């Protein structure tokens, strides 16, 4: 039944951090397999390879492939990031921070947000994110690794991502992959050759006249999906919910001490400011129906103080089957999403983990691919929901924003939204990327308050919850000033490494 024996060789096409990360993971976890990378130049629309801000999951990915936590900092000039500040998504309201941390601590029998909502109803209350330790820390420009805090400290359990210098980081991954035995075959692909009998990829004809063959092919070539699109072109388009179809990027000088990226809403989309130790990345994400490329370029030039590149055209959505026969698409070859919430590389890493865990026999039986595709789909659809949530829960008057709010959201998001607005609950979904606290950070941050809250809260009187909430804020206010500044922290870390 199991077919044709185990896979012995894999070719990974693509030259960015998705391809090199994939090759390193395969090689490291499945040492019996020969892995070859065909390093192609980065496609402009390969967002998973180009976006510098990452989610906490990147650290798990590193530890899985055998890289240390501080390697990217010390060897590739990367920095840390604690979260994102969202500005202007609600007219006339302060920014809110989405960090990867607990928002308050449960007390009594109901979760924290119920206490917060009840207090908000009763009158003035400190912002929801004032109860998230990492938000208080990052807003103050201070930083410490959670592992360096004593176990009981409110700052002992937050998550953080990395702010990548994508160029040095990719170089580091490449060097590491080669070090553990990944082969590199520098050439361009001139054609993809399919086996007549079953449509599997037999090999890639290279521009040096040679043919590279393998049992399995991983397509990390960006949105063009040079390999995978030879098998089929089906694509699920999400333009109705995510109508931004352009990304403009510009690099400016680095700014020290920034732990929070900024995502600022504008008339026809949003723009970002994200700093890593090497540079500050500026970006503008917009819908071409509402903003011309020329005006977009002017806008970004004005805010970045740097010259933007060419506009990148994107079409948001995903392949229903990233894996077909012996070819699996990972990164932008499988999924295109605007970089809001920085999920592009995260989704690629999860697909790599799955590929490693699920690698089938050489016949790539449909039942085994089915589970991979099912999990990818479930995960991606929920990430889409989370991104769409930012728009659905916005309050701005420009036509772009009004049109978006008038569009019926995907059913799973509609369910989430109604359950939360009705009674403060969040439904459970398999393969969810963002934690309940992340959903709450955005929902409450954008002013969505439930009509009712958990009935079990009645066992704690409101005065008592307000006292407990105040005590949480006070304890943060006492700890944060004792932490080193982020700039100092980074310098010390690098200094220790030199010594």
């Amino acid at each position, binding site marked *: *039944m199991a077919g044709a024996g185990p896979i012995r060789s894999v070719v990974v096409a693509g030259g960015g951090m998705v391809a090199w990360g994939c090759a390193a993971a395969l090689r490291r976890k*499945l040492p019996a397999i020969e892995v070859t990378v065909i390093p192609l130049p980065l496609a402009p629309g390969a967002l998973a390879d180009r976006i510098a801000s990452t989610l906490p999951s990147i650290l798990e990915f590193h530890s899985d492939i055998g890289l240390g936590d501080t390697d990217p900092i010390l060897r590739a000039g990367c920095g840390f990031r604690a979260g994102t500040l969202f500005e202007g998504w609600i007219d006339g309201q302060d920014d809110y921070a989405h960090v990867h941390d607990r928002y308050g601590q449960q007390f009594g029998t109901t979760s924290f947000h119920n206490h917060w909502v009840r207090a908000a109803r009763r009158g003035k209350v400190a912002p929801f994110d004032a109860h998230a330790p990492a938000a208080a820390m990052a807003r103050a420009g201070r930083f410490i690794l959670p592992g360096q805090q004593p176990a009981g400290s409110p700052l002992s359990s937050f998550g953080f991502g990395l702010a990548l210098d994508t160029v040095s980081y990719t170089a580091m991954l490449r060097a590491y992959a080669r070090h553990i035995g990944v082969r590199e075959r520098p050439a361009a692909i001139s054609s993809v050759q399919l086996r007549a009998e079953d449509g599997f990829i037999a090999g890639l004809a290279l521009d040096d006249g040679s043919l590279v063959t393998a049992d399995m092919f991983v397509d990390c070539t960006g949105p063009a999906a040079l390999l995978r699109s030879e098998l089929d072109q089906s694509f699920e388009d999400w333009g109705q919910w995510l109508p931004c179809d352009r990304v403009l990027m510009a690099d400016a000088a680095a700014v020290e001490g920034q732990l929070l990226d900024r995502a600022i809403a504008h008339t026809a989309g949003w723009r970002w400011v994200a700093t890593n130790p090497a540079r500050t990345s500026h970006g503008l994400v917009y819908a071409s129906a509402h903003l011309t490329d020329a005006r977009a370029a002017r806008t970004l030039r004005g805010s970045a103080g740097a010259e933007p590149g060419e506009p990148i055209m994107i079409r948001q959505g995903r392949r229903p089957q990233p894996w077909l026969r012996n070819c699996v698409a990972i990164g932008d070859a499988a999924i295109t999403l605007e970089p809001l919430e920085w999920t592009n590389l995260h989704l690629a890493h999860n697909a790599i983990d799955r590929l490693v865990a699920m690698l*089938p026999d050489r016949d790539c039986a449909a*039942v*085994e691919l089915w589970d991979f595709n099912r999990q990818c789909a479930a995960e991606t659809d929920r990430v889409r929901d989370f991104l769409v949530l930012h728009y659905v829960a916005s309050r701005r008057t420009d036509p772009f924003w009004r049109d978006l709010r008038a569009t019926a959201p995907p059913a799973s998001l509609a369910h989430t939204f*109604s*359950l939360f607005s009705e009674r403060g609950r969040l439904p459970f979904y398999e393969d969810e990327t963002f934690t309940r606290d992340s959903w709450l950070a955005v929902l409450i941050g954008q002013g969505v308050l439930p009509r009712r809250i958990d009935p*079990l809260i*009645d066992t704690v009187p409101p005065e008592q919850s307000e006292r407990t909430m105040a005590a949480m804020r006070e304890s943060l206010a006492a700890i944060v000033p004792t932490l080193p500044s982020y700039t100092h922290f980074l310098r010390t870390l690098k200094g220790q490494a030199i010594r």
Partner: protein
Amino acid sequence: MAPRRVVIVGGGTAGWMTAAALTRLLPGQCSVHLVESEAIGIVGVGEATLPHIRAFNERLGIDEAEFMAATRATFKLGIEFRDWGRIGDSYIHPFGTFGPGNAELNFHQYWLRLRQQGVAVPDLEQFSMGCMIARRNRFALPASDSRDLASTFGYAYQFDANLFAPYLRRLSESWGARRTEGRIVTVHRDGESGDIAAIELESGERIEGDLFVDCSGFVSLLLGKAMGEPFEDWSKWLPADRAVAMPCRTEGAITPYTSAIAMPAGWRWRIPLQNRTGNGYVYSSKFLSDEDAAAALVASVEGEPIAAPRQLRFLAGRRARSWVGNCIGVGLSSGFLEPLESTSIYLIQAAITNLLELFPEPEISPVDRNEFNRLIDLEYDRIRDFLILHYHATERSDTPFWDYVRTMEIPDSLAEKMELFRRRGRVVKYREGVFLDASWVAVYLGQRVIPEGHDLRADAPGTESLVAGMVKLHSQIAEIAGGMPEHRQYLARYCPMAA
């Protein structure tokens, strides 16, 4: 807000569990009025539970030792399945993990790899703390430190359901539940909304309410009869529709596990309590007459019978919805799955937990209802596939019953899961399902669904070090299990029933 008047119909396990939870956890929000008829009696025939029951008891502040003494309870480490894959087979489905349970890769993958390599490895159950304690008829509470091997098992209880309901009744009444004894003759529905307005008793008494919880058992007095909610019949997959039960004296050790022993037309349960052992034969009336079933049960029990055989009838399946209008079915009134994996009380508990969290306002919102029904459906569907697996994964063809279940069509969702396991031992992930990876692995391997391959990540360690690790683990588990007291002694010290 005025407290909602909750009327509970039926005073068995479901009725009193609901009453206890509502009175204890939502005291200000509802009044509870339970109507039961002693003439109807309860189905409970000695109940084996899942570890989840402990969370329910803890939430209610129930003292474990006191509760166990009152219900003549014993500890349960898992379920022994005898004669399922083939006559003569025996395996235990433990509440816990195989191996230390903390590795990235499930332990059975390494075990499979060594077997497929031709290395002689003991049965998988010898690497499960829970199984090894069970096989020795021993017990001690699990360790709290998750790095400790002695923490890698869970436990539940085997208790007398006829005593559990009265125990909860005492608590519920002390927390304010009202109880009326009487037989219901009429259910009055509101002409406009179709909601239940009141129930009328034989005595002429009329009891009004805002919310009606149907705990009437198989008759489904409110949900099925009054509201007319259709029943989805699953008997083509789960053909057992009768049971005959008979307690007997306990001979020999009190096993810290329930046994499910395959029989010619179904299976037989064996549930040891402190004072007696519950027995029952679950069978399909298509394949066996009631007389023959009773005779087979009498012939097979191990101790002297202490009551005459008692017959029960049922049908596998569930109501299309559990919550309709203002009527909520909890327990058998909303569906039935045979007690093969001790899920009856678990399903009651799931309904109660969801009701607490979605407790409605005076005007019941469809959002609450739909979410409740969605969550309950998920529970039923997952358990259903797991139960069908037990029947279908067999080599037995010795009776028409086993021939039928072995060759019957199974749901696609289960066929895919089985195929994935057969290929390389993969378990389809169910993060919040009641049965986790180890449960599926236990049943698959225990019933001879043997993978042809394994997860390639298991090839990473060298054979020698892997074998050395297994040998060490094996002896550590044997040592810890062997050092625990006899189950009977532990009970006598911890929670002896009143003489």
